[in-house]
């Protein structure tokens, strides 16, 4: 019982303190998951050091090859070695410094710097890729759930699912874009192509995860007289989650590729695909711009991958190797 004003104040203060501690704990917990697991851990520091080392090595190799090419007039003759080094010319391999400079220069006369143009394009393409990634994941999961419950449908449909992946994406991209425009869903054209690339690994991995359940784990559910929906959500699906994340790590960057490829035949100018076509046309006069665009595209793919990997760490916390 609270009897005096003094005690009341103290109790209130206590409650506030508890709240602060709780909030602090929650934040530190999140911080621990996000940062400690990724950075402060010595293994991860080593990984970071390796990454920087490899990056420096690639930079040195790139500029080194260019230097040797320049010094040897692009034909290296050294004892038994007789190498054509035309590949190291500025047209094929621009100086990294020039690529860096290209970002800061305006893409068009009196326009904003290239980096701004490319970042806007990356956001545009990123949205398409995200939509395609989401649609592909949902489609992939739905197919896997159908297949795990019906051997007949699995046998009947799987050949078509596999066949769909043997058709070159470049061959169907224009058709999909045109159909989408005719169906008045032209905004979905490019995401559909990204989804086309993204659903297949999800189907394959999720199907494996949904069916790779120990016999006794199933019998346990049977002993509870569980219905198929409970077996799906309490056993099969959680069991499949690590498998699904493996698939998503493949499909996340692939959906960026799908979006870029989808932009190529559709004449969409606002995305990275449009930028690639555009700067490819001016490649002979200004090669650094295409390289600059490619680097941004690669970074977008890496971003997609990293988000999936991070979500995996937050979700799949029961595995010994993750914790």
């Amino acid at each position, binding site marked *: 019982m609270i009897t005096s004003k003094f005690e009341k104040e103290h109790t209130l203060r206590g409650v506030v303190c508890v709240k602060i501690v709780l909030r602090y704990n929650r934040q530190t917990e999140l911080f621990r998951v996000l940062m400690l697991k990724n950075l402060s851990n010595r293994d991860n520091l080593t990984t970071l050091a390796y990454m920087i080392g490899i990056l420096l090595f690639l930079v040195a190799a790139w500029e080194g090859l260019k230097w040797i090419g320049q010094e040897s007039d692009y034909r290296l003759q050294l004892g038994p070695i007789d190498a054509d080094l035309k590949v190291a010319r500025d047209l094929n391999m621009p100086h990294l410094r020039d690529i860096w400079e290209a970002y800061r220069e305006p893409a068009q006369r009196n326009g904003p710097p290239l980096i701004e143009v490319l970042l806007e394009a990356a956001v545009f393409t990123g949205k398409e890729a995200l939509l395609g990634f989401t649609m592909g994941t949902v489609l992939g999961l739905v197919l896997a759930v159908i297949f795990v419950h019906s051997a007949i449908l699995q046998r009947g449909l799987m050949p078509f699912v596999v066949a769909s992946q043997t058709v070159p994406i470049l061959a169907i991209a224009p058709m999909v874009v045109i159909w989408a425009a005719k169906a008045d869903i032209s905004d979905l054209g490019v995401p559909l192509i990204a989804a086309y690339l993204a659903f297949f690994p999800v189907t394959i991995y999720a199907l494996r995860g949904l069916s790779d359940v120990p016999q006794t784990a199933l019998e*346990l559910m049977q*002993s509870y007289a569980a219905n198929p929906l409970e077996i799906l959500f309490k056993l099969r699906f959680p069991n499949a989650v690590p498998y699904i994340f493996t698939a998503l790590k493949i499909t996340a960057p692939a959906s960026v590729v799908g979006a870029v490829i989808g932009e190529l035949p559709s004449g969409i100018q606002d995305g990275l695909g449009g930028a690639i076509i555009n700067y490819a046309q001016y490649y002979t006069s200004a090669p650094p711009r295409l390289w600059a665009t490619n680097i941004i595209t690669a970074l977008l793919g890496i971003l997609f991958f990293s988000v999936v990997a991070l979500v995996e760490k937050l979700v799949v916390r029961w595995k010994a190797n993750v914790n």
Partner: protein
Amino acid sequence: MSNTNSQDTLIVIQDLNKKFTSADGKVVNALENINLEVKRGEFISLIGPSGCGKSTLLRLIANLIEPTNGILTVNGHSADVARRNREYGFVFQSATLYEWRTVTKNVQLPLEVMKYSRQERAERAKKMLELVELSDFADHYPWQLSGGMQQRVSIARALAFEPPLLLMDEPFGALDEMTRERLNNELLSIWHSIPNMTVIFVTHNISEAVYLSSRVVVMSPRPGKIYKVIDVDLPRPRSAETLDSDGFFHYSSQIRHLLREVMA
């Protein structure tokens, strides 16, 4: 002869047969003419060499598989109805914990399926973990536990919805001798603490069978048959003293001889 309505009879098995068809089309008699009656509150062990069908018999009672013919009732219903009524808990040789669930969540699994309220789930899981002395590990994941601890969690899970019957398929077969002895004692104290709980326990360990059981069913292989049923008339509660007693030695050697006969 049998009276399925009798208050103290839990399981009635009459002329039960189970045939399997193997991949090459051969028909194997897994169980032939099984007759057994189990009373409420009994602790029964099924023992026999591999191929005697002891696990098959347990899985028939659990309705995880269907008999070829014969009568099998559990708690007055068919095995199928008994399963749907959730009248038994099953413990497998491997703990079969769901690795993505913490210890508490694993114990709550049957309660979730059976639509217990959140509060009741939490209360029962807490009580069950106290029973198997794992309260301190409630929030651990299965990989963080030893094999013996995992099996205790699986026992807590099987008992969480308080079924009248506990079916155990070589639950301690994969554990070392020390752990096995400790878990035997724990199992007996759980059995004593729940009035009228019936246990059917499959094992290939003679002293385990004698130590735990009120009756030991010795089975013979190919085809699986009940060879002899031994009443184990040793005083309870059983303890380390039981293991040293003449009675314990007598029953153990009797069963060892029977097993030698069925293997011959």
